[in-house]
């Protein structure tokens, strides 16, 4: 869950909150889980749903000018400065995508999920998942595969 959340967000700030909220939702929805063997994918789906909401909230906050900035000198992660710059730059580009395309692309290309798993986590059909990934590929252009 933390891995999916971090990869979708690109920064560690809200990861613990998302894990927390995912567990809360999972606990409430547990009776709906019919096959206990599917729990991993099921939790992944909830994680993606919770993270998508966080991304929408962040986008809304940016739009209304309430986006928080990191205080100077407050370490944002354990990455080296070069790696931090790279991740920051990469996610700046990813932020230009539509949220659904971004999520599908990250799950497929960075997280390495199978297409059917991407579709399940995104709550869409296989065809839609493929279309979103292709659209993101096109927008990102020169992405190394």
């Amino acid at each position, binding site marked *: 869950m933390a891995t999916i959340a*971090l990869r979708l967000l690109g920064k560690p700030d809200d990861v613990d909150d998302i894990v927390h909220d995912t567990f*809360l939702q999972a606990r409430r929805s547990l009776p709906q889980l019919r096959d206990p063997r599917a729990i991993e994918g099921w939790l992944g789906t909830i994680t993606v749903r919770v993270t998508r909401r966080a991304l929408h909230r962040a986008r809304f906050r940016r739009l209304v000018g309430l986006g928080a900035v990191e205080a100077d000198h407050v370490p944002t992660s354990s990455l080296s400065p070069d790696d931090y710059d790279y991740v920051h730059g*990469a996610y700046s580009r990813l932020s230009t995508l539509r949220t659904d395309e971004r999520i599908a692309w990250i799950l497929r290309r*960075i997280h390495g999920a199978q297409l059917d798993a991407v579709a399940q986590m995104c709550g869409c059909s296989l065809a839609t998942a493929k279309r979103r990934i292709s659209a993101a590929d096109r927008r990102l252009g020169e*992405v*190394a*595969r």
Partner: protein
Amino acid sequence: MMLDPDRLRTLTTPEWTAQREDAVLRRLQQAERPRPARWIAISVVAMAAAALILVWWIGGDDSVLVPSPDPSSDSPIVDARPPAADPSLLIPPPNPAIPPRAAPVVTPLQFRDGSAVIPDDEGSDLVIAEAGADSTRVELRRGGARFDVTPRPERRFRVEMGLVTVDVLGTEFHCLREDGRVTVEVIRGRVSVSWPGGSTLLRRGESGVFPPPAAEPSAERRSPAPSSAARWRRLARKGDATAAYEALRAGEAVANRAEELMLAADVARKAGHPAAALPYLRRVLAEHPADSRAPLAAFTSGRIEFGRGRYRKAAKHFARVREMGETSLVEHALAREVEAWAAAGDEARAQRLARDYLSRYPHGPRVEKVRRVLVAGEE
């Protein structure tokens, strides 16, 4: 810029630790719903802001808009001054014919532990002078800001405003620097305010202007001290603990004030000489036992002694924190006392205190550690 998924995969693998897992599990035990209070707070603030704008727009009574802290009330300042409100809403412009301008965009400073500093307006000048694991210093150079500080006893949070400093253990308060004076209003918790020649404790709902008129340093008192005497302090303020410690070792004087003694102790600890901090902390405890920093001095002494393997001494310091009255450090001091007595081999006392802790703080942040001590003792 090429996006390399393999590199991104490596760089976005979280370091998930047992500590983070514990924290999430604790929150899960405490919360049935995901942070509902935040939405309630946002709704309340939004409604309060809307009401203020409406009242101002229709030219209502000015006094409604000026906050008037009432210590007997539970949350007067929150009601009168919403966190992100434009101060221009609180003090209407002289010409009511001029339409209100849009609230300027104010960006809060958000710390990773959840603490936040929200400037009053675009004219407020804030600088993060230090943001380390055990100390955070914010300089308010101009204007005002609301501080919402997450309690972390091992970290000191200080706001500096010229001659006036505010020490925080975990609380919410507002500071305004204006005309050479500083107004401090406490919304939640309590803070210690100090200025040359004095200090005081402000509790929830209280406010004050500092330095108080009677305590303002006279021209004579303001005469500069010999430059060498202040050098260690300047170095410490700059964050150069090593140089400040060397200056102290060279014989520079430390004034017999709790604030100064605590600073000297911090210098010694940060310079890697925790034992050298103990004499300063002892002086705080012996000569300023009523000062608001005294519990922190005892707690820090306990941590240092524990680190040196002097567990009984550490336990006694932690016990002293509890004896000093109800502060936000008491819970942590009790847990640390349990650990110290267990490490000292006094299992009976450790277990008795562990039970005390678990009954008083069943959802406390140190429950797991204390429970482990209890289980180990029973085995």
